[in-house]
């Protein structure tokens, strides 16, 4: 197991409260966990359990009321807004349920965008974007616009955009929600492969079948981590002949 310090994402006693007084809502209560390189962690829970809040905080899009969120050892709060924005362009990749591609840009332009925003020269950015598209298996669709792609293809572009420039933290919010089950599975296979290649992934989902691709599953209820599964040896389980 990796030492705690090597975690790509670390949340320590993170609490997020929305509103004040009578309308106060605790979206997260003292949540702690880490995600290491090579690891995919799934977060499961019913709607309103705090899954999306957790991901928003991990991505530096929102700040905790108390506790700390660190990405690659850096406390996001200490970075300030500009530093966090830079972190999002260089270290954190986001994958959404509805893909969030820019319709006026073609596939390669969508993928190159975060690099170009970060000041990378167009030619270099395009080359990296091309490599990322190849990696997710749609290098031949580089000049296609999102409207002319299937949902699965658009999500592949989104994953390429999330990993371009060797970003090591991938945050996926119900990435298979808008896809049929076969396409969804191929997206999970990609996320899994990316984590196996050294990235750290957080997958928010309410589908057990999809969460099962993760190394660990964290269960959230009312903003609290109520349980977590590790990974038992599959062979032992099958050999015993009794799955339960």
């Amino acid at each position, binding site marked *: 197991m990796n030492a705690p310090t090597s975690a790509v994402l670390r949340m320590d006693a993170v609490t997020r409260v929305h509103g004040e007084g009578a309308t106060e809502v605790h979206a997260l209560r003292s949540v702690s966990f880490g995600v290491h390189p090579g690891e995919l962690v799934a977060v499961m829970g019913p709607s309103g359990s705090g899954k999306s809040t957790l991901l928003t905080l991990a991505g530096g899009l929102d700040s905790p009321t108390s506790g700390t969120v660190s990405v690659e050892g850096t406390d996001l709060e200490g970075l300030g807004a500009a530093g966090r924005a830079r972190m999002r362009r260089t270290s954190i990749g986001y994958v959404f349920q509805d893909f969030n591609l820019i319709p006026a840009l073609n596939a390669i332009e969508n993928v190159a965008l975060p690099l170009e925003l970060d000041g990378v020269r167009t030619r270099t950015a395009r080359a990296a974007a091309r490599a990322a598209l190849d990696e997710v298996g749609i290098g031949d669709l580089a000049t296609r616009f999102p409207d002319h792609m299937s949902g699965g293809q658009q999500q592949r572009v989104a994953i390429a955009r999330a990993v371009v420039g060797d970003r090591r933290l991938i945050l996926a919010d119900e990435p298979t929600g808008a896809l049929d089950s076969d396409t969804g599975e191929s997206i999970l296979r990609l996320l899994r492969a990316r984590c196996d290649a050294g990235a750290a992934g957080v997958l928010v989902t309410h589908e057990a079948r999809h969460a099962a691709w993760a190394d660990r599953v964290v269960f959230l209820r009312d903003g609290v981590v109520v349980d977590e599964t590790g990974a038992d040896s599959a062979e032992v389980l099958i*050999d015993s002949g009794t799955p339960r």
Partner: protein
Amino acid sequence: MSVKQALLALLEEGPRYGYQLRAQFEQRTGSTWPLNVGQVYTTLTRLERDGLVVGAGADDEGHVVYRITDDGRDAVAAWFTTPVERTQPPRDELAIKLALAVTVPGVDVGAVIQQQRSATMSALQDYTRLKRQAEGGELSWSLVLDSLVFAAEAEIRWLDHCEARLRRAQIERPETLLDEILTEEADEEARR
């Protein structure tokens, strides 16, 4: 489980002896339901008694080989063309446990549900890992794995459903509501 029909179906491919049948059964089902060789031989004896297989002598190494009969072929065909019976629901320990947990006083049903959800999720993770490893391998084994995946997934969905219904019941249960109203009224009384 229908060891009888499964062995007959394997014998349709040609004469086999006990160890071969066991090996082929386990290969196709990924050793998910291990068979012991004693079970195989008792089943073969019963099949022979019923006229569905006949002993075809021993091979060079002395293994007793069995061959399927015409009646045996008919039995296999009937098995494949008849749906698996569902007249009696199979005994489901988890459903029984939860049914009792919600009625026996003093049981933390939420904890029972979560504990099971975690355990089933771990199993589902294991099946998914095996599926990834088995990619490009034998179709028969991968279909058995899919069956395990779907069953585990259904169980988790059912547990989620139980949890949601319990929560709703707790909110809607009139006596709880009455208790709350009474406490609130008492609080207000005290403040005045």
